[in-house]
């Protein structure tokens, strides 16, 4: 057999491999499909509960404090969290399996998935981390002005968070570049088609 000739034995090995013969009835599929939707709903609920707890915590600071600057900082964080929750719901609600799954060929589907991921990462600062920054900065400044004895400690903690944010930003930028490269590869294949 030359490398150019077909290789029927390999296809035979592939097609004759033992399979478990897993079968799913339509009723079972319906049940699992409903369960899947329920799981999505609960995942969303968990996100909102976490956001509500954090907002509640800052709301309690806001109510207890008599410092106007501190109250403003808490309000900014609460507003940032609310905006973030709204955007999370709008952009990242786990999608249920689309019914048009068979209408798109693999190339179109693959590229669309990568573009969705890239769009999510590319704009994450605008809607996810960005809205929280004004509140966090104001909160740090308010804490420092209210606690003159621990300024160095507060500066160190804030610097640590700033470094973390920069790292997240760099990682995201790297991820976006990788995704862009893969999208371009697929696009080249598509346009060459």
């Amino acid at each position, binding site marked *: 057999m030359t490398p150019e000739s077909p290789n029927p034995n390999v*296809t035979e*090995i592939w097609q004759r491999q033992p399979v478990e*013969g897993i079968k799913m009835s339509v009723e079972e599929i319906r049940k699992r*499909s409903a369960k899947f939707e329920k799981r999505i709903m609960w995942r969303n609920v968990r996100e909102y509960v976490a956001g509500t707890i954090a907002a509640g915590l800052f709301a309690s600071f806001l109510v207890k404090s008599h410092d106007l600057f501190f109250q403003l900082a808490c309000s900014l964080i609460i507003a940032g969290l609310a905006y973030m929750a709204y955007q999370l719901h709008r952009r990242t609600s786990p999608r249920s399996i689309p019914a048009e*799954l*068979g209408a798109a060929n693999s190339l179109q589907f693959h590229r669309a998935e990568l573009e969705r991921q890239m769009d999510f990462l590319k704009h994450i600062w605008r809607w996810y981390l960005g809205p929280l920054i004004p509140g966090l900065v104001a909160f740090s400044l308010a804490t420092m002005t209210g606690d003159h004895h621990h300024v160095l400690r507060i500066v160190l903690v804030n610097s640590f968070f700033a470094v973390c944010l920069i790292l997240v930003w760099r990682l995201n930028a790297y991820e976006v570049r990788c995704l862009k490269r893969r999208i371009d590869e697929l696009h080249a294949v598509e346009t*060459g088609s």
Partner: protein
Amino acid sequence: MPTEGSDQDRIYRQAAQIYGAALERLARAYEADAEARRDLLQEIHIGLWRSFEGFDQRCSLRTWIYRVAHNVSTSHVLRQRRARLQNMVGLEELENLPDARVNDTDQRHSLKRLVALVQQLKPLDRQVILSYLEGLDAASIAEITGLSAGNVATKIHRIKNILAKRFHAGEQK
């Protein structure tokens, strides 16, 4: 929600009956872990059933089924860790690797090696090689993947080269 015995249900039953084994083989090529593979297979079946709600016969049932199965599986691969994605190679790279001919007389071992080979490929190349192994012709593969007929032909040529290089010795028995 469709009623019992709707078109959606009927087409799904027909699809599962005819292509059930092929879908299992496909899931095996996308997921090495047995537990995760069962989940993937279930996801493919759910995806199929749901997709038949919008099946308008613009393409053949077979093309539709393979598109859904590959699209669900590709999403599964994309959800995996980046590190694993980075380790994937294309047919071109695989073809240029040194000759890995093994005197392999055990079919089970050959199958293991074949699965391992398929699992290291990038999604699009994996779809082409799987379709080839399932016995689909170039036109059908082009319809499923969206590649041009010429591109599919080139890839199939590479696949044949790779398979001949790697499995030739084992098939002399």
